């Protein structure tokens, strides 16, 4: 048996034939659509490296069954920059030295974009840290990550940046 699903990934409709219902959204992105920006860290929903926006909400793509999300809109790290211009969160991560090895960074950035959209943390660093606690950074770049998220959020408010998704 096979399952035919259609997703909108970074604004483009993508049609996929699945021969196995076990494929997670993360594996579909990485192995079948060649979007390897979303990382497989723990693959168990504990590290956040696989974070993507699914219908506008940040989720762990390793714990989402692709077949269950037929018709969904997905935004990955590859879909943030526009015409070569980095998304404000991407730019802020560079400016604030918010990573070292970079493995967790796509998940951190997608989580931050989702967090800013949720508009729960405001400009309180403690709330930002709490709202970002689903993303682990083994290099310990948390100080820079918090600064980058706060800075990007402020700039997005000023610039009126709207999500492309």
């Amino acid at each position: 048996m096979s399952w035919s699903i259609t997703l909108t990934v970074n604004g483009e409709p993508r049609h996929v034939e699945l021969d196995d219902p076990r494929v997670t959204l993360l594996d579909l992105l990485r192995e079948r659509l060649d979007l390897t920006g979303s990382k497989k860290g723990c693959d168990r929903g504990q590290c956040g490296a696989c974070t993507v926006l699914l219908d506008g909400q940040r989720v762990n793509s390793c714990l989402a069954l692709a077949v269950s999300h037929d018709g969904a809109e997905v935004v990955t790290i590859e879909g943030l920059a526009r015409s070569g211009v980095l998304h404000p969160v991407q730019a802020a991560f560079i400016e604030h030295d918010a990573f070292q090895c970079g493995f967790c960074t796509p998940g951190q950035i997608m989580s931050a974009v989702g967090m800013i959209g949720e508009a729960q943390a405001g400009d309180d660093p403690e709330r930002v840290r709490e709202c970002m606690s689903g993303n682990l950074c083994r290099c310990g770049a948390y100080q820079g990550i918090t600064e980058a998220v706060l800075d990007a959020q402020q700039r997005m408010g000023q610039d009126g940046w709207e999500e492309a998704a």
Partner: protein
Amino acid sequence: MNRFDYIRPATVAEAVTAASVPGSAFLAAGTNLLDLMKGGVVRPERLVDVSRLPGLDAVEALPDGAFRIGARVRNAELAHDRDFARRFPAVAEALLSGASAQLRNAATAGGNLLQRTRCAYFYDPASACNKREPGAGCDALGGENRLHAVLGWSESCIATHPSDFCVPLAALGAVVEIEGPGGRREVPLEEFHLLPGSTPERESVLSPGELVVALRLPAGADAFAAHSRYVKLRERTSYAFAVVSAAAMLRMEGGTIAEARLALGGVALKPWRAREAEAVLAGARPDAATFRRAAEAALEGAHPSGENGFKIELARRIAARALALAAAGTPERIPALPASPLAPVTGVALHG
């Protein structure tokens, strides 16, 4: 992960019929189920996807004053529903103290009730676990068990139920609405989860094919809104299961506690409502001595299941602290660290 058949029914009735076949499991967000399947802890032969079923996604006040939460409502959506959070602030605080933002955006209300224990021996197929394999034995007994149960456990299972959400729900007398092959029925949340006894593989009252369709808070449950807190001690600041937790709610009248609700998490294989403690609190003055007496009553009958005797006194203190914080009043905004017992609070003598 084992291979499985995938079925996506269009209605609740079809879902119930599909899941009545032995070897079936319901799939909602899958945040717990897929994790368990990846570890080979559970191996369902078919998944019945209920993530799109119509009619299960509303958060609504009912005409009779009750409040209904559809089983598909996401944890984050419920916690940030203004009307809900205003009426049931301890439930919102409990939700926001659980898991991570990503998981809360996916995980559903119904799935939260049915999540499995995080006992490491249950999660490890190489270990003996009566819950995973009836009759196999329990490697948690005599193993690494400092976080295991201190109430209601048996020699066959000493695991705890991991939910935060269920703790204030149990305190508020929530009711679980169930649709099954025999029709619709309702079960109080307090009776929904089963203590292990000699059958720890049986975790809830659900029979094959039965689906949780909603949770209902009875009329009047919002009378505690002004004095409601959830307090959860974790081994790290955020994104961790409870070592122990407590939901405390008070209805105050003229400086006296008219009515109280108290439930504990992390202490048993079900959310543990402490009715004896509620009786101690009713009619009493809200002071440290009262809260300590209530906490003693809540842990009456507790005993260690291993290297976890410390949890009994810890649970008493967390219960007393939750009561003190509830007496001080529900904060206008959920604290930056939801449910943290370590957050600074002005005007409350935490160590009474």
